[in-house]
């Protein structure tokens, strides 16, 4: 059967794509141009392909003269932080949701509501007390200081609680009759059954961790712990006579790549997982 092309729909879609892709293209094109030209406002939309080497040089050497770190180091710090936060959040919230949903203990609901209330206290709100606590623990300027305060997650606990509440009682009872204890039930039933949710959450949390700015800025003043986001910002306010826009844009392009890889890689997996979900 011949299908007529729906022009208006395609036009809207193309516009949408352009709207999202244009800034990314602009940054990519800008990275290959001369910093002076960008400062004058002569930003061309056509990349200068002879300068593609800037990506490699930023990756391996950073902005050499100013003493900056190579981007690969900062990417590693960012990746380590984002991974630790995402995995840590998932582990902690799976355990707390498991406890809240499947066990009867005193003050169970009080515990749940306490977790729930922290939804209203993101890092930005509690940043000074959190910094004080980290200082008391001598965790300033350490990788642990960078990640630990961001790991507790009310959102993820809430999400897993809903997922676990939707698991039929009979499934739990069948596992009990089969002789599965609490630990076995967690590993043999809950985790495989909620794997798709964990994948979806991992994507969101990885991007959340990757984009952290305020907390790393405050807690890790040691340049060896600079994340890629901090690195980009430092190029802006680094006291350069001429802001190295092209280096900054190259770094921004490099900074986008890992989250995109995670999203694309996991998307295939979690859409697949969601499609196979069954009660």
């Amino acid at each position, binding site marked *: 059967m011949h299908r007529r092309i729906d022009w208006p729909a395609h036009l809207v879609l193309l516009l949408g794509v352009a709207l999202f892709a244009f800034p990314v293209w602009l940054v990519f094109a800008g990275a290959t141009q001369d910093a002076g030209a960008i400062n004058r406002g002569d930003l061309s939309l056509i990349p200068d392909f002879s300068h593609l080497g800037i990506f490699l040089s930023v990756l391996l050497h950073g902005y050499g003269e100013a003493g900056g770190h190579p981007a690969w180091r900062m990417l590693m710090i960012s990746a380590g932080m984002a991974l630790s936060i995402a995995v840590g959040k998932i582990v902690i919230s799976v355990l707390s949701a498991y406890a809240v949903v499947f066990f009867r203990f005193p003050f169970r609901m009080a515990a749940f509501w306490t977790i729930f209330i922290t939804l209203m206290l993101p890092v930005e709100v509690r940043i000074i007390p959190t910094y004080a606590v980290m200082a008391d623990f001598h965790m300033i300027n350490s990788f642990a200081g960078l990640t630990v305060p961001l790991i507790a997650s009310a959102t993820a606990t809430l999400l897993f609680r809903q997922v676990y509440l939707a698991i039929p009682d*009979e499934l739990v009872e069948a596992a009990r*009759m089969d002789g599965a204890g609490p630990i076995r039930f967690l590993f043999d039933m809950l985790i495989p059954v909620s794997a798709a949710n964990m994948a979806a959450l991992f994507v969101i949390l990885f991007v959340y961790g990757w984009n952290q700015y305020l907390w790393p800025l405050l807690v890790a003043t040691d340049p060896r712990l600079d994340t890629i986001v901090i690195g980009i910002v430092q190029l802006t306010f680094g006291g350069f006579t001429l802001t190295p826009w092209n280096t900054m844009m190259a770094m921004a392009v490099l900074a986008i790549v890992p989250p995109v890889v995670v999203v694309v890689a996991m998307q295939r997996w979690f859409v697949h997982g969601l499609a196979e979900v069954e009660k």
Partner: protein
Amino acid sequence: MATLELAGLAKSFGALAVLHGVDLALADGEMVVIVGASGCGKSTLLRLVAGLEEPSAGSVVLDGRDVTRLDPAARDIAMVFQNYALYPHMSVFENMAYGLRIRRLGRADIRRRVDQAARMLGIEGLLDRKPRQLSGGQRQRVAMGRAIVREPKLFLFDEPLSNLDARLRVQMRAEIRRLQRRLGVTSLYVTHDQVEAMTLGDRLVVMHEGRPAQVASPLEVFSRPANTYVAGFIGAPAMNFLPARLADAGRAAVLKAGPVIAFADGPRAGRDGRALIIGIRPEDVTVLPEGAAQGLRLAVDLVEPLGSETLLHGRLPGGAAFTVQRAGMVRVGEEMTVGFSPASLHVFEAETGRRLEPVSLAPPARVESSAAMHGSR
């Protein structure tokens, strides 16, 4: 294979008493069906036996061992759930093998048991599939397979057929019965479906408001219901109940609708005028020729032709609802005269609803005769 004894088993949720103390003993290899309307406590009873709930009082003794305080897994009981409760992320094989793996059986042993159960159930070809790739009937079989491989002392069935369509239900019903006979495992089966109850059970427990209203063989429950609740619950269409009073020194009943009926099987105890309820099953009612002296006038207000039989609903003089079942397709007028043999009557005390037996006859003698009579009908 084992015996099961429940003694004074009771359960309350807070102030709400769901089960008021159930005594029941299952012989080795016996299949007992617990039947009742929803909310009668039948599922709670099953869950107490399984160990999924803690009883408020009483004990569960399996094969001579008190298991009342034991964990479900330690009781050596397998259960088939209403919605099958298959593990969605495991293959059929893994579903059946899971309980065995936890019990640390050898790989070869597990393989052998699962293969054997799968052959018995005709699901050998499905072992690698996931539950979502199976039809309802196949899932049902896997759920049973999971129970069978455990080789438990006791099977528990919690309305296992209620999620299947009517055709499959009839087929699986026969299959469960055959399987249970073949394996000889003592079984407790909960259902709200009286046909399932009648066909599957060696004995029935008719539950009503947290108490067993009657515990007896299916035929006895049908032919000698212990009270008006059981009489109304077992048998379709439901039994007709007519208010009456004892008369003629206990030898007869005067129906509120008019006629006097002499009891065929002997007098009932009590003073004349004692309030009774006379029960008569719709299939025991006969239509009398027009103008018959005896009989009741029935004003028909609804005719339900079912093909092999026809149900006539109507009202007697005095307003009592009355149903007649006739074989085949029949044409009827708006009014007819109906009657019944005094031998097919059930007599209950109006106040308590309890069955009233004739005073002169010992009950067991009558069980045989009524069962035989029922069988030949």
